């Protein structure tokens, strides 16, 4: 009996591995190997068409010591991330809370708020180019009609990043859906019990909703951070990194190095620096999470 179950288990194991093999192979071939290759390339000087030349840490030393544009791109990317991620999370959470109410036409509202996420990134960018246009754009028309001065939006060094962060809030659909699922998973009886005890709306939200969805916030925070650090298409389509390199995001800068300036080695070095930065931030969030994330059934 025991022997048979062991064989059954090993058969299952074998099949399990076999079934997962496409995914494993795919990961190894298309993710892991290229990543390792890029790590090796980051220690070389390589224009793809030439023979790679091993240069040790020269790419990294150039990046940190001699390249003001790298620091600019790091600053710009971090600035964008610290504006965009909280804005998206707060915005998505608020909208998800509203969409969790029992109102007429709920499905329509949910569709409308999710719709921007379905729009392709480039179409999205072109649309916002028009909204942001200082001369004919909707935003400036609204601003002037209520008596505010016009803004140059993405054409001004100072406002380009806040403008792009504003635009990112529009694409919060996916984050919002996850929040909505989290909100719907909060047990009703907790609210009912709190209500009987006389808790008002704010208290219920603060002491029940927030702790119960803190794990969802945690998830969205990590995913949002990883996603925004890799922001690219806005710079590529809308601003070309400008004005005056004020939207020179790291991924856009590494793209330029790799495919326009023929510096694949340097581009890989930037990519790995970005990877380490994202990793550090993710670790920080994970390490601090026990202090503010609540899991049901967790032993304290």
């Amino acid at each position, binding site marked *: 009996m025991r022997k048979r179950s062991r064989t059954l288990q090993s058969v299952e194991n074998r099949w399990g591995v076999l079934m997962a093999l496409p995914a494993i192979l795919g990961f190894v071939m298309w993710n892991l190997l290229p990543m390792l290759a890029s790590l090796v390339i980051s220690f070389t000087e390589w*224009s*793809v*068409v*030439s023979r790679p030349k091993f240069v040790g840490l020269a790419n990294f030393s150039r990046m940190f010591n*001699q390249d003001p544009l790298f620091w600019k791109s790091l600053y710009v990317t971090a600035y964008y991330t610290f504006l965009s991620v909280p804005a998206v999370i707060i915005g998505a959470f608020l909208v998800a809370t509203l969409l969790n109410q029992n109102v007429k036409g709920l499905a329509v509202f949910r569709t409308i708020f999710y719709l921007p996420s379905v729009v392709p990134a480039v179409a999205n960018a072109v649309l916002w*180019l*028009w909204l942001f*246009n*200082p*001369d*004919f754009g909707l935003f400036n028309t609204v601003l002037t009609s209520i008596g505010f001065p016009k803004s*140059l939006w993405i*054409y*001004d*060094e100072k406002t380009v990043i806040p403008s792009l962060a504003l635009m990112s809030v529009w694409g919060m659909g996916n984050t919002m859906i996850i929040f909505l699922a989290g909100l719907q998973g909060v047990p009703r009886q907790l609210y009912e019990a709190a209500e009987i005890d006389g808790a008002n709306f704010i208290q219920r939200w603060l002491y029940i909703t927030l702790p119960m969805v803190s794990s969802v916030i945690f998830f969205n925070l990590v995913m949002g951070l990883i996603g925004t650090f890799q922001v690219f298409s806005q710079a590529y389509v809308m601003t*070309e*990194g*400008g*004005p*005056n*390199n004020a939207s*020179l995001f790291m991924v856009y800068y590494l793209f*330029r190095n790799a*495919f*326009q*300036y*023929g510096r694949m080695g340097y581009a890989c070095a930037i990519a790995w620096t970005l990877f380490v930065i994202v990793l550090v931030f993710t670790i920080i969030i994970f390490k601090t999470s026990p202090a503010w994330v609540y899991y049901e059934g967790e032993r304290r």
Partner: protein
Amino acid sequence: MLGKKGSRIIILLLATALCLSLFAAAVSAEKVKLKYTYWGSPLEKTAQEEMLKEFMKAYPHIEVQPIYIPSDYVTKITAMLAAGDPPDVGQLGEGQVLAWAEEGVVLDITPFMEQDPEVSFESRLPMTWYMYDGGKKTVGTNLAVEIMMMFYNKEIFDEAGVPYPPAKAGEWTWDEFVETAIALTKDRNGRRPGEPGFDPNNIDTYGVAFGTWWAPILPFVWSNGGDWFDEEGREPLINKPESVEALQKLNDLIYKYHVAPTPTQMQTFPAFNILLQTRKVAMVVDGQWALLDLAQSGFKLGAAPLPTLKEPVCLELGAPNVIFAATKHPQEAWLLYKWSTTSSKVMSLNKSGLWMPLNIEYYTDPEKMNEWLTEGVHPPEYKEAAIDYVLEYGRRAPSYYMRNWEEITSAISQGLSNFWLGKEDAQTAADKVAEALRPLLQGRYDR
């Protein structure tokens, strides 16, 4: 069911087919196969395909596979090279070609030229050669000659009673140009700049429009005696008085005289040919290639050389065609290279207005000139405004020789962006650009 006879026929047919296909394979094995890569508009695609067909007719033993790459060209060529499957002949970006030549990815064609008198330095426009290795080697010339020039809508001039600009280079001074632009600009109420009540925020027709990337700007800087950098390509000159003055004069067109749209307005504008056609703009500074679209836009088109600040100058530019070093058939590749860069073989593109010919006789010999100048495409002033202009005052763009060209252009356009938005004066912006340029100026490929 098939009878015995039927199946025998089938077997016979199959055997014949097999023999034929083997035979075909044997024949095509003798054929030399070349890959030719290129980019461009749909029109260029058709013309290039025709050119290749003619080539294969002339050389039946060569079979050319055209590979059309309309976008991300360098990325794809890079991938082909990295995968060990490079093209034999093809176009290449100005920013890559000489770096690749130094790496040995692209062939030096001087050995072929020594053997073949049909291609010589004298046979093509002198500024079109991409030289490297201290000027001793060359990858060849542009695929087509292009210059920066002025196009205008004659109907707007006629209505405003403004004389057309002179077609001869050097006769149109900057001040006259500004006057012309003012006389053509008109706000919603029909007022001109300078008239009382002129509303610069609601302009119906602009006198002139120009892009703010390097090619429309540099000829004016040159014309004023300035430059982006010195002759050796080591010291920035963009912040020297001559350069700054030229930049400021261009900027004044937008913010002082209000005769040109701002860069943010340009973002919302359609292509230049539509702007001229719809009378949003009376004159445009653009590449000669724009003629293709302009000629089909249905208005009375005029052409002129760029106005002169101090000296007349004509900026010449164009992406090269090259032979890739990995080709297994250098002789056949040379034949294809020669064919693709011989003006008579791509005459349809020259006639359409998109390209200017490479071979010098098309600029000097009136009979040859008539082979490509086309009524309804090339306006009557074109001979003086473009042909004489490039022949007399043509100067190669720095893309022909500067190292780090892509980074240099990016540093210039980023550094001047606030200036073109009217938020910075020319000197401040140019000083910043000069600082950013310093580490990038690593000299020239041909020195």
